Every structure is written in structure tokens, then in C-alpha cells.
């Protein structure tokens, strides 16, 4: 019987071990041991692991290094930051991806690791998560159970659910592919596309209109079920992000120094030139206001009203170093800003009367090591 059990092939065994070592070694490096019990005697495996990882920690953080980090923190980050995430300031759930994988953060601050995925996106009502790692695309439930998965030869990236949950668009290398929400009917849709996440037009009808960018800087808008081209526009610069407003009436192509705006059918409606480098953006729910991270030495989050081109943007927060991501709460009352330089998250209120809530030690809380966790999305009030 033992031979039979040992003979069974375990898929992906070697690769899984490599991934696990990264995660576990980081968890050990972050572990702060309590006082040792009396008459304790560490077993050899624990001694070996502890010695190896403590040595790494000592090399990485010398006394001089600690002083430098402290003085940077005096200028970077909020001093009033809470040491741990104990709750979200409002409803919904966060989707976060770190070196350890993809996490769901609940309103009470509790976290669940879905798996060692690299990218993730909520389904329209937060019932499932589309996840990608390497050559694999999967749909998982919020407990991490895989509902279906498929593999492709290119690298799978940026899965995106259609508004009705019945389609998922994703990139496979330089190809755009569409699969049904239940994992069936996977097909190639377009070749030579830019490495920018496609964006489905929000809709209450069962239509599947998708915006994506070609490698030749064309913005393309398709009704995918009939492969009907609705619009093709040349973009002045390579886009870094495509976004729709939540009512589906505004489409934005964000590039490093410009916001190009289009209506629901892809007709140009103006552009805004940005003097500083734009990193990422997000539409405020139920509005045409767009929050954008501007970088270059220091970072600022500013809000443009895309219906009022020419009006200067409103700044909501600025700080030293870089901001790596932002997400609006589902009720639009907060903006979450990821601040890797400070190793903090900031929950910034969008209306008066509330204070900024900061949380420090984000990397350790998501077992992320030197790579700051990425904010994927803040979804759904139910």
C-alpha cells in the first residue's frame, strides 16, 4: 500500500515546493519569537531553519540600517498608523495580491489566502475570483476552492469578468482570449494586443462589449459575441490602463502623460494633458470622477472630472516616495492608497468630517517580503 501511495504522481510537485519555500521563509523572517519555554531544546529541523533565516535577517538589517529606516519613516508615512489592519472603514471586501499569493480581506480585517496566484479579479457580485498564475487561469470561490481551471502556452495575465459574469477576458502572451464564466468555450479573440488589461463596458443588459488596446496603439471596441467592431481609435501614446465609468458612459485610456476620453461607443470626447507621470487610476463609483496617482519624486492622488475638461484636478492626498495603487470603496466614501515607501495603507475619506486611517506593516501582514502587495479591487457591499 505504501508503494502504491508513493507511486502516485503529484502534479506540479517540484514547482510547488519552490513556491512554498519563498512564502514560508518570508513568514519565518517576519516571525517574532516569544520567550523560549524552560528546558526547551530545539529540534534539528527548527534549529536549521531558524539559523539560516536569522542569519539572513542580520545581514539585511544592521544597526546602521535600522537608523536609516527610522529617519525615512519620520518623513514618510503617517505616525498615527495602526500597527495592523483590524477593520475596513466601510463595507465590501478587498482583493490583494502579494508574493504569497492572492488574499481576500473581509470588513473585519480578517484575511484568507486563496492561493499562490499572481493576479486576480472579482466576479461582478464578488461570488468568485478569476485568478492567474503562470500558464493557468482559474475561477475560485472566496474560500479558495478551484471551480475550474485551464492552461495556455503563453503567460496568462489580467483576467477580467464581464458585468453579467458570463464571460472572462484575459491575455495569453500577446493574444486576447475570451472564455465563458464556467470555463467552457475558451477561444482566441485577437492577436498582437498590448499588455494592458482589457475592460468590459458596464451594462445591465447581457451585452458583452470589450475595450482593449492593440500593440500598434489602437483602442478597439468590440461586441465580442458577434465579433462586431464598434470603434477603432488611434491613441496618441501607449496606454497603461483602460477604464470605464460605472455607468458605462465614459471610457478612458490612461497613458503616462495624458487621459484620453471616449463616450460609450468609442467616440473621442477630449483629452487631458498631465505634466507629471501618471501611474494608475480608478473611477469613483457612480460618477465620472477619476482618481489618478501622479508620481515623480513625491506622489499625489488627484481627482479629475472627465466631464469638465479644463477644470484643475482636486488633490486628495500627497506624500514622499511612491504610491503603487489605489481603490475606491464600493460606497465611494473612501479611497485606499497603497504606499510602499512607507509600508502603509491609507484610507482617505472623500467627504469631510473623518480622519485618514493609516495601517503600517502591510508587507508583513500579507507575507510579502520586499515586494509590496498589490491592490486588485475593493468590491461589493454584500
Amino acid at each position, binding site marked *: 500500500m*505504501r508503494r502504491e501511495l508513493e507511486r502516485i504522481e503529484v502534479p506540479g510537485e517540484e514547482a510547488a515546493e519552490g*513556491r512554498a519555500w519563498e*512564502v514560508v521563509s518570508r513568514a519565518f523572517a517576519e516571525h517574532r519569537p516569544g520567550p523560549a519555554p524552560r528546558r526547551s531544546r530545539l529540534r534539528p529541523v*527548527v534549529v536549521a531553519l531558524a539559523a539560516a533565516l536569522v542569519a539572513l535577517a542580520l545581514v539585511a538589517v544592521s544597526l546602521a540600517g535600522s537608523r536609516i529606516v527610522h529617519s525615512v519613516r519620520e518623513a514618510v508615512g503617517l505616525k498615527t498608523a495602526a500597527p495592523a489592519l483590524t477593520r475596513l472603514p466601510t463595507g465590501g471586501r478587498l482583493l490583494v495580491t502579494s508574493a504569497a499569493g492572492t488574499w481576500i480581506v473581509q470588513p473585519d480585517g480578517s484575511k484568507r489566502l486563496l492561493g*499562490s496566484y499572481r493576479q486576480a479579479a472579482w466576479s461582478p457580485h464578488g461570488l468568485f475570483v478569476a485568478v492567474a498564475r503562470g500558464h493557468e487561469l482559474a475561477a475560485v470561490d472566496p474560500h479558495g476552492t478551484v471551480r475550474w481551471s485551464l492552461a495556455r502556452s503563453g503567460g496568462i495575465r489580467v483576467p477580467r469578468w464581464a458585468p453579467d459574469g458570463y464571460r472572462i477576458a484575459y491575455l495569453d502572451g500577446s493574444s486576447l482570449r475570451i472564455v465563458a464564466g464556467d470555463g467552457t468555450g475558451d477561444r482566441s479573440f485577437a492577436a498582437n494586443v498590448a499588455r494592458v488589461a482589457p475592460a468590459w463596458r458596464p451594462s445591465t443588459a447581457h451585452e458583452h462589449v470589450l475595450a482593449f488596446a492593440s500593440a500598434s496603439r489602437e483602442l478597439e471596441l468590440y461586441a465580442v459575441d458577434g465579433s462586431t467592431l464598434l470603434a477603432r481609435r488611434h491613441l496618441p501614446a501607449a496606454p497603461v490602463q483602460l477604464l470605464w465609468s460605472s455607468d458605462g458612459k465614459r471610457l478612458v485610456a490612461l497613458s503616462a502623460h495624458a487621459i484620453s476620453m471616449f463616450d460609450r461607443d468609442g467616440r473621442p470626447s477630449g483629452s487631458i494633458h498631465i505634466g507629471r507621470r501618471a501611474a494608475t487610476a480608478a473611477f469613483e463609483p457612480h460618477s465620472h470622477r477619476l482618481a489618478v496617482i501622479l508620481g515623480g519624486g513625491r506622489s499625489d492622488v488627484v481627482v479629475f472630472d472627465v466631464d469638465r475638461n479644463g477644470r484643475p484636478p482636486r488633490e486628495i492626498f500627497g506624500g514622499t516616495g511612491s504610491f503603487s495603487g489605489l481603490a475606491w470603496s464600493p460606497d465611494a466614501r473612501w479611497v485606499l492608497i497603497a504606499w510602499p515607501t512607507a509600508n502603509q495603507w491609507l484610507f482617505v475619506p472623500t467627504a469631510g468630517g473623518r480622519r485618514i486611517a493609516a495601517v503600517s506593516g502591510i508587507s508583513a501582514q500579507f507575507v510579502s517580503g520586499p515586494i509590496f502587495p498589490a491592490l486588485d479591487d475593493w468590491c461589493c457591499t454584500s
Partner: protein
Amino acid sequence: MHWPKLHRAAYLVVHDAAAAEDIAQESFVAAVRRLDTFDRERPFGPWLHRIAVNRAIDSLRVRRLRAEAELEDAVAPLRLPDVSDDALAALADLAPEHRAVIVLRHLLGYTPGEIAELLDLPRGTVNSRLRRGLDTLRERLPS
């Protein structure tokens, strides 16, 4: 040194490569976080195996409950991978609790008494599950 057996044990119980990797990985991370409470007079392996096998069984229970609760769903029900290996197919026919004791006994080498302690079960229950599980496997596996 612990990973290969732990990962294999998780896979044999849940029959899902992605879930097995997560369970094994999370078990190690959980063990790291609980190092302060670990009684260092005791061996490390059984402590780690207990965490992993219990997580594997919980994972299967949740999966079953979810499948039963889904009424309207745009996502297809869970499909087990195509099984071509006779032993894996035979294991798949066992209930998760029977799989777990078979794996602990015959892969990880625990005695029935140790299994009872690991899973917090009466020894008689462990013996019964082992007997029934082995009988089923012997019927299914080619001699």
C-alpha cells in the same frame, strides 16, 4: 525534508493539485506562526502533519457544502481531474475521512494510536476507518 510527504499527503486527501499546494503551504506558514506554542520536547513532523491533514479534511467539507448550496451559478460544478492512475482512482472513491487515515497510516507511517491522537478520534474509529478503507482499496486495485 517535510515538504514532499506533506504535499503528497494533502494531494491524496483532496485530489486537487492547487488545493494541495495551498494546504501544504498554509500548514507550514501556520506552523511558523505557532512556533511559540510548539512543545519542543515533541517531534515536529506529527505536529505539522496534524495541521495539514485537518486542513485537507476541512477543505473537502467546505467544497461539499458549497456544491450543495449552489442554486444559481454561472460557474460549473467542481470537476475532479481525469484520473488514470488506478491507486488514485481507488482513493477517490473513499470518503475524505477514510482517505485521511489511509494516508496517515500507509504514507506517513503513523500507528492507529498516533492517528487517533493526531485527529482527536477514538482509536476504535480509526481502526474501523482503516479497515473499511483498505477493504475498498483492495477490491479496486489490481493485485
